């Protein structure tokens, strides 16, 4: 066994110092801008807060999804890098904190919280059993609790395996993952309906949960890919992270870029074609004034560029291209969330300003600080995982 050239002797290393410094810097700068924005433009800041929540939730629950997907599909190529997803998933723990400010601005963000409006509006009063502040709050708490619970259970087993090397822990995690999948599907759907679809409370689309899901898993995958490629170039995983591993990340990213486009296009085409006013309003809003350019931008940024950027086989294997495209896709997801959220704030025209920028920087800082905190405490590689050796030796 030990004569294999790729055999892995893991010794824990500190993360690169500039990686850590960058995380802290972004966190501090972002935090200053966020706090400042609360005093300058409270409402705009609240909407940006929704964006922050949805973006960070994407990274957190999306990472959890990829962990679960690995266990369920029996994949081995991703096992050596699973810890990256596990560390990123830790951002789930701060979701309650970043969701909290929205509760002080419910009236500004959510139209359906105005009782006097709901009373006179037939549609909103019909929805009131679902769209009311107390049920909304309960749902948000339950969803985040489910995510945190499964995150905790699954990563605890994974961590325990580092020392015990017990295969039963893998078995347990597979079972937990199977239970998690239906809960995940429902929770992410209704989380998206609550926080994004209900911003325009009259509008509805059956595919909306899938739409948010497609962006979520793509963004989380991009975050994982970026960190994996960056750290593995510096030799943090094992010698011989090969093109085969990179290619798997690249191909998966490419696949999910297409999946997002497919879902987004399906939603758009069906609404455009049927031309029912109660549905088209959502797209019409995004075609007013500056929003038109913003919408065209979404197609280019979220689909055209990553599609061609990852289409060719060599580009799926090139570390440089992968790093660039992952950052691009993360930006695209933030842009997407902005495209969904902000038209409710400014109907006719909108130019992103320093407040949104501040929140974006804060999101990056927050995610990195949490990642670095976890990476400082735990092994970067699941050294006790029975699939690790197969993962290291993985060839296409």
């Amino acid at each position, binding site marked *: *066994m030990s004569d294999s050239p790729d055999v892995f002797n893991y010794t824990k290393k500190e993360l690169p110092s500039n990686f850590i410094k960058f995380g802290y810097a972004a966190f501090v700068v972002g935090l200053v801008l966020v706090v400042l924005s609360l005093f300058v433009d409270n409402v705009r800041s609240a909407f940006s807060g929704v964006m922050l929540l949805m973006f960070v939730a994407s990274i957190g629950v999306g990472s959890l999804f990829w962990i679960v997907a690995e266990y369920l599909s029996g994949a081995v190529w991703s096992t050596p890098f699973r810890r990256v997803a596990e560390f990123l998933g830790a951002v789930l723990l701060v979701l309650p904190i970043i969701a909290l400010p929205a509760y002080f601005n419910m009236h500004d963000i959510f139209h359906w919280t105005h009782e006097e409006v709901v009373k006179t509006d037939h549609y909103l009063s019909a929805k009131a059993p679902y769209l009311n502040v107390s049920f909304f709050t309960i749902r948000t708490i339950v969803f985040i609790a489910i995510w945190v619970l499964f995150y905790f259970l699954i990563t605890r087993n994974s961590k325990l395996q580092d020392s015990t090397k017990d295969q039963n822990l893998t078995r347990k995690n597979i079972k937990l993952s199977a239970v998690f999948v239906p809960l995940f599907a429902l929770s992410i*759907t209704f989380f998206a309906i609550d926080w994004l679809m209900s911003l325009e409370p009259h509008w509805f689309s*059956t595919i909306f949960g899938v739409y948010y899901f497609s962006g979520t898993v793509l963004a989380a995958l991009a975050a994982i890919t970026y960190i994996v490629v960056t750290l593995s170039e510096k030799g943090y995983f094992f010698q011989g992270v090969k093109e085969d591993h990179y290619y798997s990340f690249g191909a998966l990213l490419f696949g999910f870029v297409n999946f997002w486009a497919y879902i987004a296009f399906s939603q758009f085409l069906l609404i455009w074609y*049927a031309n029912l006013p109660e549905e088209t309003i959502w797209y019409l809003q995004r075609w007013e004034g500056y929003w038109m350019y913003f919408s065209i931008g979404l197609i280019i940024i979220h689909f055209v560029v990553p599609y061609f950027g990852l289409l060719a086989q060599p580009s799926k294997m090139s570390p440089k291209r992968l790093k660039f495209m992952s950052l691009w896709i993360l930006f695209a997801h933030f842009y997407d969330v902005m495209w969904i959220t902000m038209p409710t704030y400014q109907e006719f025209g909108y130019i992103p300003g320093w407040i949104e920028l501040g929140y974006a920087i804060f999101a990056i800082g927050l995610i990195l600080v949490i990642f670095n905190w976890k990476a400082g405490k735990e092994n970067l590689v699941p050294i006790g995982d029975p699939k690790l050796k197969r993962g290291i030796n993985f060839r296409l």
Partner: protein
Amino acid sequence: MSSIDYTQELPVVEGRPTLKEINELIARPLDQKPDKKFYIALSITVSMLLIGAIALGFTFYYGVGLWGNNNPVGWGFPIVNFVFWVGIGHAGTLISAILFLFRQRWRNGIARFAEGMTIFAVMTAGLFPLIHVGRPWLAGYLIPYPNQHSLWVDFNSPLLWDVFAVSTYFTVSFIFWYVGLIPDFASLRDRATSKVKKIIYSIFSLGWRHSNRHWTHYEMVYLVLAGFATPLVLSVHTIVSFDFAVSILPGWHATIFPPYFVAGAVFSGFAMVQNVLIFIRKIFNYEKIITLDTLERMNKIILLTGSMVGYAYAMEFFTAWYSGVQPEQFTFINRAFGPYAWAYWIMVSCNVLFPQLFWIRKIRRTIPVMFVIAVLVNVGMWFERFVITVTSLHRDFLPSSWAYFKPTIVDLAILLGSFGFFFTWILLFTKTLPVVSIAEIKAVNEGAQPSHGEH
């Protein structure tokens, strides 16, 4: 067997057969004369086919008035059957192309049959639009070309997109299937003893010599074709879903239709592959190349896609309520509790409830039980299309024109005939071509892969 060793890969092929043994095992059904059982099976399917043909003859002679279609329910059995068979035709390329791109090696035992099934199912599906146009000899006008009558198709209609999508899908699936067969034709040629067979296999093997250069080209072509086939698989059923979803009819117009139809198609297609392969592996003694593990994996996919379909049902219901739009709400309540409640609950129980039994490992690995569940899945998926088509139409916006759709004997005979048509092709396929890819099984045989000193 309950404890899997995760440090080792599960073998796809059991028993480490030699290359010659693989050749012989897979080619044996082609060498033997068909036995009595085969002729009994064939006579049953051909009889079904003929019943359908007679019903079609009546239809063309007397017209589509022989069907149950009535005024609000203008779309009846033909579209239901069309969507059903296109759905069956879905899993083939999914198993072949998408699982290939995902490097799922267990697909190699089932891919060939699934591809063949795709082709026959799409052929079966293709009959229905032709029948439904009433005068099939004029169907050539579906293809847009400048003509003396200045007749042009409506490019805005998803029904026309269907023509393009299905024919493209059929073409690419056929090429994909044939390219995969080339190395096998060569293997068959090399071992053929009869002169006629040798000539036929030689022609179809296109001069294949199993040389390294041939394989290099082959692998590249196969990968590219898989890349082409993948978006086509998705586009076909997406466009089929557009047939319904672009309308404004409650029950048809839902933005979730495209992924929901794709998941449903994969679901029913896998169930059909599983059903037929259970027979094939038993009759041809393929238990070691189509292993119980492979069947279990298929059952897991059936569970997953069945639950996705269940998710779509739930979202449709929730959104109908959430939208506050009265016709939407009426349609869904009518679906579940109206005159077609029986069809709706058949659909829900077969598609969502019974597949949940696959959560239990023992059931995933018990052949008679999984067979019954997969049969139910296909019953359920046929009823899903029936529910979508008929229940959305039968009580339209004007209560005075509400009516109940009842299929006539001609409708049922044509449906029966479609099964006859499909299974006749399947039976002929099993005796004329290798239903499992010889080359691909060799590639996943234990010891075929380069390893790092583990053996």
